[in-house]
């Protein structure tokens, strides 16, 4: 095990704990937007696809990047847009009551 792996493991473990702490406070009413929002957050995989694109030099690599980029872009844009749509419905209600 080298220092880089240990550093990454530390970040991973602490992030898991932060996730548990932050998310366990979300009320049941908001579970669907939460899941959809979390879904959008893992759209960060697009950053990974971009980093990968810098190291591919073969046709197979390009095809792979093409598919992965399409997948990741769909994940990230769709995820945020649909979550926003859902949360807008919860918001207008609050304002309507005032």
């Amino acid at each position: 095990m080298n220092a880089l792996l240990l550093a990454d493991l530390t970040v991973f473990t602490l992030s898991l704990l932060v996730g548990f702490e932050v998310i366990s406070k979300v009320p049941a009413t908001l579970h669907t937007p939460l899941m959809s929002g979390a879904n959008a957050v893992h759209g960060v995989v697009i950053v990974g696809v971009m980093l990968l694109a810098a190291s591919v030099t073969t046709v197979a690599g390009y095809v792979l990047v093409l598919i992965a980029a399409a997948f990741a872009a769909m994940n990230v844009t769709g995820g945020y847009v649909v979550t926003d749509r859902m949360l807008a419905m919860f918001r207008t209600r609050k304002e309507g009551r005032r």
Partner: protein
Amino acid sequence: MSGFDTTVHLIYLACAVCFVLGLHLMNAPASARRGNRLSAAGMTAAIVTTAAVLVHDRVIAGWAVAALVAGGVLGAVAGLITARRVEMTAMPQLVSLFNAVGGGAAALIALGDALAHSADLAGQPVRTSVTTVLDLAIGGVTLSGSLVASGKLAGMVPGRPIGVPGGRWINAVLGLAAVVLAGLFLTGHAGMAALYGIGFAALAAGVLLTLPIGGADMPVVISLLNACTGTAVAMAGFVLGSDALIIAGALVGAAGAILTKLMADAMNRPISAIIAGGYGTGDDAAGPAGSTGPVREVTAEDAALQLAYAHKVVIVPGYGLAAAQAQHELVALARALTERGAEVSYGIHPVAGRMPGHMNVLLAEADAPYAQLKDLEEVNPQFPGTDVALVVGANDVTNPAARRPGNPVSGMPILDVDRARSVIVIKRSLGHGYAGIDNELYTHPSTAMLFADAKKGLSALLVGVREYAA
């Protein structure tokens, strides 16, 4: 470390902070939208920064840029269109689909990175080789598993549990094959071929694991698959040495794990039993009628009269309501009762719907006031003081048999509907729920059954209630 690198790292750190704070703001409806936008802003910054890094480093091949841009535009347009058009009832299959492509992208990163280093695969450090295998395996299972789950939710794949002959054995063989291939790959005895093998095994396992799981267990399954995607993305972060991916992936993994546990608890079934599958019929709760006790039937007019003069009404909606697209009729009825001065609330079981919190979204879409939406713990103490409990499209989650041991719903947390002074159940027939047993609520002395389709029944009730408006 150059000034540029330092700036890039700091921006990634700020992005990670945005993700955490964004999820944190999701704990109240008033701040949730702001949270999502903060998270989206962090994401945009991460993407722009990465693009700047690519431009700055000047190592990316022209074809790679073309592939990246073409794929990105294609995916973004597809995501945008589906996200804009989707009906709220179809939300679970869409979230599942986005989950599938996210997992797929993570798995492809593992493959792509290995391909880029295929000349020196054996020389890769443990930090990337082990995580490449994990990323590929988890991402592959998630991709095919989420696609099957999405198909089941959309009705394209039958929702009932589909048993594959010898499925468990095939899965065991697939798992063993993947472990052996991983061993060969990690010890440098096999290269890309082993990775392709692991990828195929993972895809096949995803299908075989999801097919036997019934419609009733879908909230658990999509939560679990969500956790898997998060983990796969974190693994991709290890492979690429990107903290942003590790942090975001871990956050999603934690979110998915919490929701999985909450959903499994709400059904009182161990996660292992859910994955084993075979439970829950799926789309139509109207199985063969087989109730023994006397059932009291009520007409829409009588039920409307009862509702019109009730002071306190608790509405218990289930998936049948969503399937009949009757949430607007229900909310209109609730509004009419509120205008007559009744205290109205909705008692929502955690697994009402096809994904965690799905029913709340459907009711919010129909303009139900947020303050009227009550969860299990909030609403149960209120039933003894409730004049009428109106059950629409919910079945097993109201079955008092759950309080007794020795039956399929034993120990499952239920809504104590039978403790209300009177109960009206709108249902098409005396059919069984997913658990496949009679609902004792239907033969309870204080229960009256209104046999109707949810939409028609609620419209009739609304007309009836309005007649007493004077």
